[in-house]
């Protein structure tokens, strides 16, 4: 089942008045449950593409369909709703809320959905247990290692049962062992919960474990 489709996507940035072609004529279809890695050298447009697919940015031309719905022209409020209900994000720099504990960070997106306090606490703890990070529940981000923070970020991304998780260079700040554990975890989530994962990465370990690899070069898909 098709979950995401990009049609003739073009993204042109203005750099001091000079147009920069970040993405050119991207056509792409992702099916439910896929485990996709978008790879390519720095500046190839990986993050730009991920941002467009995740409704964080708008294309200069072209369309993005999420679950057959064209999200390109949607209002900020509607996009925000889609991100809350259907998407999960994992960032390179973890980006946990520094003043919240691990469990509160995970609970936060459930709170946005209006899930009652008790239910979300139970669900967050259950998920933390599943991901092996239960003991971090009451720790704040500055009390955790990079790998621990990224596991909490994964938990935050999947706690609302999204259809799609977008991970931008999730292992870039981690050592290879920790990165390996994290990838195991996401693979497990992909196979057990059938969550679709799209990574952008130039980490060999991530690329090697891709079930589908899309290679970008100079803003164009070179190989998929």
């Amino acid at each position, binding site marked *: 089942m098709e979950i995401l489709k990009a049609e003739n996507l073009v993204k042109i940035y203005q750099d001091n008045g000079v147009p920069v072609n970040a993405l050119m004529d991207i056509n792409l279809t992702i099916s439910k449950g896929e485990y996709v890695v978008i790879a390519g050298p720095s500046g190839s447009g990986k993050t730009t593409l991920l941002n467009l697919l995740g409704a964080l940015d708008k294309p200069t031309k072209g369309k993005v369909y999420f679950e057959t719905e064209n999200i390109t022209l949607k209002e900020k409020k509607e996009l925000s709703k889609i991100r*809350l209900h259907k998407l999960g994000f994992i960032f390179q720099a973890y980006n946990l809320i*520094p003043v919240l504990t691990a469990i509160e960070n995970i609970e936060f997106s459930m709170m946005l959905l209006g899930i009652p306090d008790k239910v979300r606490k139970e669900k967050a703890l259950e998920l933390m247990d599943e991901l092996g990070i239960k003991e971090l529940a009451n720790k704040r981000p500055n009390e955790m290692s990079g790998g621990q923070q990224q596991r909490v970020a994964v938990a*935050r991304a999947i706690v609302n049962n999204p259809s799609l998780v977008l991970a931008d260079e999730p292992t870039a700040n981690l050592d290879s062992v920790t990165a390996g554990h994290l990838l195991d975890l996401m693979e497990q989530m992909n196979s057990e919960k059938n969550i679709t994962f799209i990574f952008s990465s130039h980490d060999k370990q991530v690329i090697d474990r891709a079930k589908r690899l899309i290679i970008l070069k100079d803003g164009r898909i070179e190989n998929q």
Partner: protein
Amino acid sequence: MLLKLAWRNIWRNKRRSFIVLISVVVGLAAIVLTDGLSNGMMSQMLFNQINLDVSHLQIHKNGFDRNKIVKNFIPDYKHVESTLQTNPEVEAYSKRVFATGILSSASNSSGVIIYGINPDEESKVSIVKSSIINGKYLGSGKREIIIGKKLAEKLGVEVGDKIVAMSNTLKGDIGSDAFRIIGIFQTSSSGFDKMTVYVQALTEQEMLGIGDNYHEFAVIAKDYTKINLVKNNVETKLGSDYEVFTYRDLLPMLIYQMELYKESMMILNVIIGLALIFGIINTMLMSVFERIREFGVLMAIGMKNSRLYLMIIFEAFILGIFGTFVGLICGLLLDIPLAHSGINLSIFATGLESFGVGAVIYPVLSIGNLINAVLFMPFVAVIGALYPAYKAIKLEPIYAINYV
């Protein structure tokens, strides 16, 4: 959770929050103190006037207030007296004979208001008895007179000296009498002390030739806030031959001045509020710019703009509430002891006395003003956060996430 997040965000930069808090605390404490002082000053001006000679209510023959001449005495003072005696809201009253005249000593003379009083009655409606600083209050002596300190200085007299009072009589002649000064009083109003003397009512009635009549009833009510009820009741019973005035009717300029003062205090509060608003805008903007990336993440995970906006407003509101609470305590800690001990402004005594205010000001806290101040500060804090919160929600998630 949003409140929890807002609360924790406040304390992530303690120094900055502390500065905002201090400004709210100082602002509120200043408002409480200045309100208390201005209230105290205004109340003192009003109550000094009431306690000197105005009282809560005055009753005259109709037309006396416009034309204070000897023949305008009360037509039937016994009727007035019985009306007041049957009114349960009346605490005390004093019958007064009123005349303007000249007081002469061996060395000088001065225009004065001569009140003829029954000393015991008058002591229940005015503070003249307790304002005696030299000698004693009027007793039973027929030729006794008490005068103000300023007048005594002008006439060059002191207790025990003789002076002569002159005034028009009912027949149009000049009546005069010699008096011995038995007491000198000093009140908070230098104008009153310079212009007013008291003698026995009987003596003045004889001097003016008005029989046993009086010109004025000065009335003190049990509850001055109900004075209009008393006025209406008395007016109805006495009819149109009499005029009945409350202190508000008798002191229109002072009442106007008080209203004006209240408004100027409001303007001052708004100025304090404006200064605070700019401080809060500055601080909240700094706080927003520091967290742009975080806001980007919140947007990315699906936080709606309205919630983000609310979160920033909550932060300012909590600071406002917290500052208000501490500011209120500080303000009260300053105000309450001062309300008992007063603030001694004796270096401005001359100026204050000319306004009818004593040298010691006692701040008066009004519940209404306190409530206003308590509501005002969180409101100011929220106003100060509106623009920074607007700036936050105008961010594009992609820009915010990548902000360095």
